């Protein structure tokens, strides 16, 4: 007898309830369609809570020279010009409105003296641009969206994991899922689906990402025939905690450097002053005094080199460690305590500006950051690549299937600027919600084949129906080790090929994963189902990385340390071939209009 399942029906379902998913849900609901949100955790716990620094929007409250054109140009430069310029345009133009709207829903940001929203400096942004509240902007954002969203008539299905999308022809018509709590199966019928599931940092051993980041959205979209784009580009945030081992990878906000924090090696040198990339030389301070003036608001000063883009800072730290000038536990020193040379009451200033960081180091590492430097090193932080979407509608290459936020690709190209993520969530969350609702209004109900659902039930139950088999946790750990060593911040052809072989071997073992116990809140079973996703995104990443024979942004190849002309001309696409294998192809970068070229030129 087949295991029963419950069916829910909505016009639009949103998978994921972080910033992008919630914003999409609010927008879709406002357009009068029925909306169901499915999230893997409890509401309000999604990875967005971890975002610290702020939300980039060129409101010009602190420096009125800022505007959307400068923000656009900064984003393009940071992305190394292979991002989707149309998305970068939408993002730069619409971000300020999304911030103001958040305030109207109850978010409280730090203020300027004249009572407007305060904006802070961040790496790669020409002017102070990040709306923020202390160093917990993500929490403010998700709580505001959550508390607003629960009164908008949206249904929330918490602790539910989607394992498959269901199609009719090339159109998506439903999603199959299980409840984590009781293991019951749920079928969602929908006219349009928005994926907003975030990234896949859990494929690595050292990561700032939470457990949910297992590439679910990318994988269900890929399995449903959608294109994945730019999967080789992963951001390694330069400053994660390195000690003690159990907290390795937890994020140390870029806000520390925005507030004047400096990086030093074991010899006490500010090594970031060396090797400044040519396209940033004219905008980078060449002495410590100028750097300090910049972070304290001097409009005529250039930024300190600690605020260069994340890919560059991360590789510089790795270089110091490799050459024997690292900190005791293999990182660099990040020092904010030094500002006591300039600020009288630096201790309370630091506690006020960086309260979570103070807490985090005090409680997890017993380090008082107002007195001593922190030890930091790179940590896997963000996936620039993901589901390929239309720049205007956020629809993927599958009809009726939309994606927004980190799981979608396009805006950030080879490297994301800090602060551009929270604004990305809101700008494209809104667009995805709007266009999914429109799609749902224009299309009728789909049909779901019941026999197909029965096979999905069986597939999901397989790890529990075996008598013995592979430990899913062990497979996950082995994958994380391989990705960390072979597909991390520094890659080579041999290493990537070794990783691909390892992934194939792990796939074979995962097919025999065993989860003892029953369906009630069984993490072993959940892990057994999650590893398919981790293996899929890891394979897509390695295949994409091996064919990009250059270094650009988050992707660094040991044999090809420079950028190439060819590399600036294409994006990498991964899709499922008819025989079920993964195929990789190149497509030309979205061309810039003359207007865009001019804006970029004017803001060089």
């Amino acid at each position: 007898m087949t295991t029963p399942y419950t069916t829910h029906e909505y016009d639009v379902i949103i998978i994921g309830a972080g910033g992008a998913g919630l914003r999409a849900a609010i927008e879709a609901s406002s357009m009068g369609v029925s909306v169901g949100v499915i999230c893997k955790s409890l509401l309000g716990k999604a990875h967005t809570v971890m975002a610290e620094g702020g939300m980039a929007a060129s409101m010009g409250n602190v420096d009125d020279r800022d505007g959307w054109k400068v923000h656009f140009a900064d984003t393009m430069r940071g992305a190394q010009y292979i991002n989707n310029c149309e998305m970068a345009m939408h993002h730069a133009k619409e971000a300020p409105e999304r911030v103001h709207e958040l305030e109207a829903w109850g978010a409280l940001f730090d203020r300027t003296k004249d009572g407007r929203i305060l904006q802070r400096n961040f790496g790669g942004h020409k002017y102070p641009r990040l709306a923020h509240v202390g160093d917990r902007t993500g929490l403010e954002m998700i709580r505001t969206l959550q508390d607003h969203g629960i009164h908008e008539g949206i249904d929330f299905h918490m602790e539910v994991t989607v394992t498959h999308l269901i199609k009719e022809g090339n159109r998506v018509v439903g999603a199959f899922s299980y409840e984590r709590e009781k293991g019951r199966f749920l079928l969602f019928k929908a006219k349009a689906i928005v994926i907003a599931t975030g990234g896949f940092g859990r494929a690595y051993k050292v990561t700032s990402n939470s457990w949910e980041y297992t590439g679910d959205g990318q994988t269900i979209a890929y399995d449903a025939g959608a294109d994945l784009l730019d999967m080789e580009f992963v951001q390694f945030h330069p400053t994660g905690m390195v000690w003690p081992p159990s907290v390795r990878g937890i994020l140390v906000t870029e806000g520390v450097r925005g507030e004047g924090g400096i990086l030093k090696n074991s010899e006490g040198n500010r090594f970031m002053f060396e090797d400044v990339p040519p396209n940033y030389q004219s905008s980078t301070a060449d002495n410590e005094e100028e750097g300090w003036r910049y972070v304290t608001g001097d409009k005529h000063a250039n930024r300190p080199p600690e605020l260069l883009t994340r890919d560059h800072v991360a590789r510089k730290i790795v270089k110091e460690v490799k050459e024997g000038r690292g900190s005791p536990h293999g990182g660099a020193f990040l020092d904010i305590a030094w500002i006591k040379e300039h600020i009288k009451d630096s201790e309370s200033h630091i506690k006020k500006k960086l309260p979570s960081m103070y807490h985090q180091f005090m409680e997890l590492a017993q380090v008082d950051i107002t007195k001593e430097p922190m030890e930091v090193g790179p940590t896997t932080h963000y996936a620039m690549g993901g589901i390929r979407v239309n720049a205007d509608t956020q629809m993927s290459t599958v009809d009726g299937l939309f994606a927004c936020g980190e799981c979608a690709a396009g805006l950030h190209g080879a490297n994301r600027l800090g602060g551009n993520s929270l604004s990305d969530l809101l700008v494209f969350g809104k667009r995805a919600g709007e266009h999914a609702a429109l799609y749902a209004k224009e299309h009728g109900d789909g049909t779901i084949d019941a026999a197909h659902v029965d096979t999905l039930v069986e597939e999901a139950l397989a790890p529990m129906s075996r008598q013995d088999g592979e430990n899913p946790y062990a497979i996950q750990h082995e994958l994380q080790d391989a990705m960390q060593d072979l597909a991390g911040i520094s890659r080579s052809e041999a290493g990537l090929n070794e990783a691909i072989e390892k992934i194939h071997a792990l796939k074979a073992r995962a097919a025999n994963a065993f989860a003892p116990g029953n369906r009630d809140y069984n993490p072993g079973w959940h892990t057994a189902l999650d590893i398919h996703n981790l293996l899929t995104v890891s394979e897509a990443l390695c295949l994409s990385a091996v064919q990009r024979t250059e270094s650009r942004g988050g992707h660094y190849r040991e044999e090809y340390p420079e950028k190439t002309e060819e590399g600036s001309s294409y994006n990498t696409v991964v899709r499922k071939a008819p025989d079920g294998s993964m195929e990789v192809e190149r497509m030309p970068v979205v061309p810039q209009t003359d207007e865009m070229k001019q804006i970029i030129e004017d803001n060089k």
Partner: protein
Amino acid sequence: MAQVTFRVWRGEGEGGYFEEYTSEVGDGMVVLDAIHDIQAEQAPDLAVRWNCKAGKCGSCSAEINGMPKLMCMTRLSSLDLTQPVTVEPMKAFPLVKDLVTDVSYNYEAKMKIKPFKPRKPDAEDGTWRIQQDDVERVQEFRKCIECFLCSDVCHVLRDHHEHQGYIGPAMFVKSAAYEMHPLDVEDRISDLKETQGLGFCNITKCCTKVCPEHITITDNAIIPLKERVVDEYYDPLTRLFKIFKPNKSK
């Protein structure tokens, strides 16, 4: 590395028992690390709820050696490891399984609170002007990570099971965040008195003691809300005013 014994609650619904596990403990480890090790090596179906492992999401609430804490922020070096370390689920909420409880009560309680309602924008472009001092005044409440440890220790819930007519300290913090929001114009005082059970709180301050975000829940959130109730309902001048205008007192 040291071998440490953990007594972990196992079971579903009403039933349950402590199971002992021995696990290796290394430098800087927190309780959640040990639980993960046990899960990966000895008990794959051990249920535990967690997300960020950085004290920011408030998912991994539990009772460690009888004290309500976040598992991810409790360093093993802060505990006496010569004795078994006891890890149990929160007690004020129904057990789902092992260390996971059904916290839906808190989500339902939040639905009872009237949502944020801003005053008219201050500027023509639809934005507001707010002073930093006014932002800072409510920051404390907005730090709440909704771990529900405060409600876990609240005797009104834990011992008296008043889940129906009482929204709990976590949601009093939420109410305070709205009530003291510089832009908010909604009135939640009558709800707090009439249907949300603010009066049940008798200020034992247990909630404040366990808050991992160090929010001074009782003194800064609950007592000021109680004062607002007093001002509105029991202030002699207001009452006198109501006597002369009886039609408005209903």
